[in-house]
């Protein structure tokens, strides 16, 4: 219970930081941290497949893309210049939602964690990748390669300038 709540707290804080951060790079990194924490929670709740995809796609692939895109943006455009005062309401709302969910939703998820489709098959991370979903590994590599070239082609004028 405490472990779950702790991770849940981390997700909330990191997610708020991702939205509030002035630098895009920090936002991207915070998003990755949130994904990692979320995948830890999924592992804990006996959903290793979902956790694995969260870890590899959201924390890995998307972060690589965001960071590569951010690296192409000029430095002077990086810091947002607008006033962020109106965004201070966000942590307040998130805090309220956090408390509400910590009381009601987390115990509900914990009650569900015993339920899995095939309780006898609980493979390890490596086994999931190599034995069951080796095709998706190729898919992820393809998407990653595609995305890198898309970033390269879409931003090509920009990087030349």
């Amino acid at each position, binding site marked *: 219970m405490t472990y779950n709540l702790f991770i849940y707290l981390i997700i909330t804080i990191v997610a708020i930081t991702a939205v509030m951060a002035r630098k895009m790079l920090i936002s991207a990194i915070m998003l990755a941290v949130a994904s990692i924490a979320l995948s830890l929670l999924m592992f804990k709740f006996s959903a290793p497949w979902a956790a694995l995809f969260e870890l590899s796609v959201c924390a890995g692939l998307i972060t690589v893309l965001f960071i590569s895109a951010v690296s192409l943006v000029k430095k002077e455009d990086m810091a947002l210049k607008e006033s962020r005062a109106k965004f201070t309401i966000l942590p307040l709302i998130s805090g309220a939602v956090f408390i509400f969910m910590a009381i009601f939703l987390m115990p509900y998820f914990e009650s569900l964690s015993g339920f899995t*489709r095939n309780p006898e098959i609980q493979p390890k991370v490596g086994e999931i990748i190599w034995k069951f979903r*080796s*095709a*998706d590994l*190729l*898919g*992820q*590599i*393809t*998407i990653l*390669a*595609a*995305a890198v*070239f*898309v970033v*390269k*082609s*879409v931003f*090509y*004028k920009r990087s030349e300038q």
Partner: protein
Amino acid sequence: MTTELLSYSIIPLLAALAIPFFGRRSFKLTEILSNVTLLAGLGNLMFIIFNPSNKLHNYETFSFDGFTILMLFTIYLVALSIVFFSTFFKVGDFNKNAFYPLIMISVSAMSSMVLSVDFFSLYIFMEALAVTSFALIACEEKKSGIEAAIKYLLLTFPASALILIGLAIMLFANGSLYFDISMQNASPAVFSALAFIVLGFAIKAGLFPFHFWTPDAYQGAPATVSAYLAGIVTKVSGMYAIIKICTLLKVMGPASFKISSPLMLIGVATLIFGSIAALAQKDFKRMLAFSSISQMGYIVAGAATLNPIGILGAILHLFNHATFKTSLFLNSAAIEKSAGTTNMKKLSGLEKNMPVTSWTSVIAIFSTAGLPPLSGFWSKLLIILALWVAAPKPYAILALIFSIVTLAYFMLLQKNVFFGKPKEELKEVKEASVYMLIPVIVMCLIIVVSGIFFPFVFEFFEKTL
């Protein structure tokens, strides 16, 4: 995935990753590498198909079917023609450094789609294909290209969402997404899942009434990219899955008509709408785009009969459409380069200056309209026969009538663009270079040869399907 053919998806991927490194030394190397990779793949596939030993043993040593191998062959053939054509097609501000790797990745994604044995892998590779197509459309630094790319992304995004919803429902209902297992029980949940999935792929294939994005994307994209999109990408990303589902539906027995009869209606509506809309077009590329929509209608209608003849007709028409539409789009690219426009009102009498382009167009047009003995005739014949046997009779009659309409609008195109008196400003127009004509001539040869030797093509599918 079918592991014995995995190299067809891995090698282009590795080539795509290697191209930027070669590109630093010399740009020529990247062009050579892309051409050689695709040529080697095509040669290898032809060895599998035409090897007398394989033929003698009825291809029993392989686990794949004739559909898979034909799709791989089509992907490599069209991609090679486009890459070879682009090597000698030099226009404007075209980002070729990104073009070749993107083509290679999309070839890899399409091959993987064809080789996948479950819906989830199919979905992943379809998304990879969508991402590369988006970037390919935006390859040219023109406003129309970027607008077309954004339209493509926004209008096909709902398709991905629908497919994903369908997959989720199917996973809940069956606990598996493998093709052979997922169709076995005919529960309402499986039907609703299939409806979502088919709807998503129908949007991807640009079927009526979900066709909004196709004409704009084809017209706005760079000339070679529109040939690539119309030639193979929309076929693999949308139509392949629909035909695959139709081949699997027979497991369900009579209940499968719940899916197939609406699909057949969509197919017939698409072929009618595409033909009528094509009649009204003033732009060469736009007319080809609407003609593509109409031919997609034939393919869906044929596959949805769930009749072996209809499915074979659909598969063959998919291949034939790839050959004749690629050659027509490449011809439109050559005209765009030489005459500077694809507006049919501004074009006239190009036959005198561009005889090869004109006569290859005639072959492709006759094949599209289904004139014997060209390949298009046989596939259309099979589709119309299947519709006559396994569908309401008016469908077959409509398919036949609109085949004549196809001939009408293409003759109109041929008359406006190539025949008649050449205009003053078009007198200096020159024929495309020999290298640019090679892919088109090869495509036309395939159209003629596979039409004349159709019994051998039929025999191959009889043994492998």
